[in-house]
């Protein structure tokens, strides 16, 4: 089923001429005709994709993963044969999913940790359902042939916060502490290219090639790193979470790999999400 959606999506892109590559080329030739191409004209490629995304979101493939995740949430599973719905507290009480996603990362006293949504869900799978941590950490991110259960669960939980305001409890002392650590991680320069997150995401209105870079230190722009995640990625046709997004940022930063669900990733997600507090979350989305 997933494959057929990917095919349909690809077809839609090709037929509609909305494929980002095609748009980029069209824009190039259009801009080449104009004597003095402005950055605004070239960003038409981005605008075109946004239009396409709006159309697609009416029948968003992410919804399939929400349904799968809901099933996983409700079913008794794992060595302990327990349902997450009957055992997992996402911060608003056992089994409560509505609004939980936009209020994470938050502090969980039972774990003694500030946790983002994916980290909390995996914690529940291990602690409450008895799943093997080793197993869950082995292949944490989706590919063409495989969707990890936590990815579907995160998509379900995220969907239950659709159209709600982001409200990370930033005044809670543990969260505040982790937020400040995240801010430091954001500006830590190292590696062969001397890059920090802030090298590319610390200024307004910048781009890498055609890709616009949000200034993630600012409220109005930090939302752009949050919106649309977890996201159904057109390239390849699978669901990816914010944990993956942070992982791939570090790859592009030429860093070694951050461990899955590590404090460093949680701190960055705390920093980014709290910076976007007050914005309305539109639910799981679509990415290029």
């Amino acid at each position, binding site marked *: 089923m997933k494959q057929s959606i990917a095919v349909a999506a690809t077809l839609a892109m090709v037929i509609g001429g909305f494929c980002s590559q095609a748009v980029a080329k069209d824009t190039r030739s259009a*801009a080449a005709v104009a004597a003095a*191409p402005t950055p605004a004209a070239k960003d038409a490629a981005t605008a075109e994709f946004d239009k396409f995304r709006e159309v697609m979101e009416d029948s968003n493939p992410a919804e399939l993963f929400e349904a799968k995740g809901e099933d996983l949430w409700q079913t008794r599973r794992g060595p302990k044969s327990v349902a997450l719905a009957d055992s997992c507290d996402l911060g608003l009480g056992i089994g409560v999913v509505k609004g939980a996603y936009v209020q994470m990362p938050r502090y969980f006293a039972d774990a003694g940790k500030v946790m983002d949504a994916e980290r909390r869900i995996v914690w529940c799978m291990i602690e409450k359902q008895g799943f093997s941590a080793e197993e869950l950490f082995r292949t944490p991110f989706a590919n063409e042939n495989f969707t990890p259960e936590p990815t579907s669960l995160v998509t379900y939980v995220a969907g239950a916060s659709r159209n709600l305001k982001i409200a990370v409890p930033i005044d809670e002392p543990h969260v505040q502490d982790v937020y400040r*650590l995240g801010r*430091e991680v954001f500006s830590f320069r190292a590696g*062969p290219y*001397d890059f920090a997150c802030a090298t590319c995401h610390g200024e307004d209105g910048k*781009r890498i090639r055609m890709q616009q870079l949000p200034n993630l230190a600012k409220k109005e722009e930090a939302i752009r790193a949050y919106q649309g995640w977890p996201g159904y990625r057109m390239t390849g046709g699978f669901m990816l979470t914010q944990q993956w997004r942070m992982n791939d940022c*570090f790859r592009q930063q030429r860093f*070694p790999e951050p*461990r899955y669900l590590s404090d460093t990733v949680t701190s960055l997600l705390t920093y980014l999400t709290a910076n976007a507090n007050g914005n309305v979350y539109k639910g799981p989305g679509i990415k290029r």
Partner: protein
Amino acid sequence: MPNRFLFLLTALLVIAGVARADDYRLRALMMIQNDFQAKGQAGLDRLETDSLQHVCNKYSDKPPEALLRLVEADQLATVKYPADGRLMGDWREGEKIAQSGRGFTWTDKPGLPVGGNCYNCHEISPKELSFGTLGPSLRNFGRNRGNTPEMRQYVFSKIFNAKSFNACSAMPRFGYIGALNEEQIRHLVALLLDPDSPVNQ
């Protein structure tokens, strides 16, 4: 200084109650040292900051003026100029190097050559409209600045070690870290300065 020493030292200081819980920069550094794993060519040694990175991190990219000059002089001293004194290569080769953004990620094949990543951040040739804006536009660079021996030396030095002229610049130190060799940098100098290069058309 390798960060591992710093890490151990910090850990000891925290245990001893000397480092303060509100020293977020040190704590973040400790956390980072714990949370990464080597993958592909990206080893944990990449988390060990060198003196330049250390200064930029410490002063949030704005070191005091006196330190800034010292650091820049230090970086400029790392630049190795070609023994034959030739600084101009072939702009066509330079354009190819400027286009490629490959290299150094854990999914890249280890080893050279890697790309110059130039278009990721700079407008260069008018024929390439897919360019980034993190760095300044280099359009007409040679026409505006002149193809003088001094300018060739400046451009070569800047690409070899961008931090020689702006200690906490966002631009990588391509020659210093061994990403680009002498010959490749020469081609890039030509891309910017050669009167025949599309950059100057």
